[in-house]
């Protein structure tokens, strides 16, 4: 549910009842999601192979790995972001991360030259843009956050506007760019899931694993951060340090997924809120896992539908944005009735 507040404090008796029934519900939800994921994966790998196993399997496995990396990155970054902003309708994409990535990639092609970038390996390009993105986003945060008095809302608004600024600047560069260089750029920016570079995939996974471990290992701290800045400080959390660390992890995760397949705006919003609805808990250990599972399921099914039902006559991000956004609006409507 898109509630921008901390968990409601219910009476002692309901808490006890919830505590007794909680483990069961969490286990059931996670097991069910796991089973759905296995089913989706099997379906994805075997659908319409027609006997060409040697050809189809490795290619599909690679695609699957990419979908998993992106799904987990998007899910984890969004859940953490929701905790940091104490608002369940935000996603890092709304903050202009994607636009910043596109601008940086465009600037690289513009200032280094298309031929230079084309001859550069995908790996170098990926490393360069990811490093630039993490650096630029961290600088932006430090500048906007200042001494911490401005609050995350100003930060979010600045992000939204900065997103437009970055988008317009990229657009400006397109206009003054050599058309050939523009082609190089396009093929780099909108790779999608249909053409994944294996080397880049490995590096992305290598970035994802430690970032995810950091987040999962600090799930207790995240639970405390849910209570808000003042209470978290009162409970002995170094709020400023945790905030910076978590924002950097979010940046790395978003950079990884965006660099791998391009921007997917609403996926995080969709999967995180679905996970909250399913688990009905505020424990990060459960929510992070559930959101990751939902994300990978959504991507695998979406890609399957795209390839086999729609015959590539759409793009995965547009399908996900459509379904995810509609789901979000439905959530708002439902909440407005309650």
């Amino acid at each position: 549910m898109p509630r921008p507040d901390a968990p409601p404090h219910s009476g002692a008796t309901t808490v006890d009842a919830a505590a007794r029934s909680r483990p069961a519900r969490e286990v059931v939800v996670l097991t069910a999601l796991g089973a759905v994921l296995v089913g989706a994966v099997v379906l994805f790998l075997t659908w319409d192979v027609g006997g060409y196993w040697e050809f189809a399997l490795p290619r599909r496995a690679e695609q699957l790995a990419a979908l998993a990396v992106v799904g987990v990155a998007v899910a984890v970054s969004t859940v953490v972001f929701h905790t940091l902003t104490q608002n369940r309708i935000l996603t890092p994409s709304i903050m202009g991360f994607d636009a910043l990535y596109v601008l940086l990639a465009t600037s690289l092609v513009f200032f280094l030259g298309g031929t230079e970038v084309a001859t550069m390996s995908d790996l170098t390009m990926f490393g360069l843009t990811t490093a630039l993105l993490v650096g630029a986003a961290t600088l932006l945060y430090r500048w906007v956050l200042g001494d911490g008095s401005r609050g995350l809302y100003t930060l979010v608004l600045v992000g939204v506007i900065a997103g437009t600024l970055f988008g317009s600047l990229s657009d400006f560069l397109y206009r003054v760019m050599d058309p050939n260089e523009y082609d190089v750029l396009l093929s780099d920016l909108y790779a999608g899931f249909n053409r994944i570079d294996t080397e880049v995939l490995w590096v992305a996974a290598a970035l994802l694993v430690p970032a995810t471990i950091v987040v999962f290992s600090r799930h207790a701290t995240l639970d405390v951060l849910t209570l808000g800045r003042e209470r978290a400080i009162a409970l002995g959390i170094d709020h400023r340090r945790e905030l910076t660390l978590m924002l950097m992890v979010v940046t790395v995760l978003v950079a990884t997924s965006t660099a791998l397949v391009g921007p997917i705006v609403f996926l995080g919003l969709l999967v995180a809120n679905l996970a909250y609805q399913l688990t009905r808990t505020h424990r990060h250990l459960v929510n992070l896992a559930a959101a990751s599972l939902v994300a990978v399921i959504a991507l695998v099914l979406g890609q399957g539908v795209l390839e086999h039902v729609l015959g590539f006559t759409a793009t995965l991000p547009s399908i996900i944005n459509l379904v995810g956004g509609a789901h979000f609006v439905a959530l708002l409507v439902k909440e407005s009735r309650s």
Partner: protein
Amino acid sequence: MTRAPRTATTAATPWVAAAAVLCLAVVSMLVGAAESDVRALWSDPEVREVFVVSRVPRTLALVLSGASLAVAGLIMQHLARNRFVAPTTAGTVDAAAVGLLVAVLVVPGIAVMGKVLIALVFSLAGTALFIWLIQRVQYKDVLLVPLIGLVLGGVYRAGAEFFAYRNNLTQALNTWFNADFSGIIEGRYETLWLAAAAAGTAYAFANLFTATGMGEAFATNVGVNYRAIMATGLTIAAMSTAVVVVTVGAIPFLGLIVPNVATLLLGDNLRRVLPVTALLGAALVLGCDIVGRLLIHPYEIAVGTIVGVVGSAVFLAILMRRGNRYAAA
């Protein structure tokens, strides 16, 4: 809500803005790929031809769309009682683009007025859905409201992209989101007078909008039909947006920034702010268009891009400097 005292500065603002629009309009008419010498206007019929068919319509189009989009933003900010609500942040632009796409797909070869009508219906419906939603959401945070609008707009846009992709129209879709005046000649801009008429109507209703902006209870108390005025205001805003999107394409942030700057200067009395908002909007678009035409002369950069860069940079500066006002607004 702030109220600036009527000082010499505020009294002079409309005249300064009007003078700026006039100067920029003259410069705009003299800048172009084909050099036009002022004296040649009288002596050379060919130069005069270029002037009348291309330069004058373009300048008029810039003034009309800049002014009407800024007014549309001003009205939406008043009615939604939120300084961050504008055609771009309430999904109105994206809804209009969906309408335009539907018009192009369903009725190929439709006349301009037909496109405007269909786009109007869609932008009205989109904006109405947005207003309906924000009136019902419980946690009415000042930033939650535009975020809902941005997400709604994202859904409309994703839907449009889905169908555009299937019909090879993604490029057309992109041009609808980014205003470009390079194709404006005589006969291609006249619909914009409709947007201007809508903005003019807004001036007639200005006091009623001011009352409505105080909230339903206050408006009803002073004898204003809240719902009717709300509907009128939304129709005016949707009309301006739809016409501009169909004719030249959306100009990002114009409806957000210009009204904010104008109310910062003059306070919240609509009747006083509205003309200045219109003039500032026209001046900003004229200025950005001139810059876009000169930067890579003889080629040009779409005005939407320049406004996006200039506008968001200006707004960021305001936000960072006056963070407190907006954090508490």
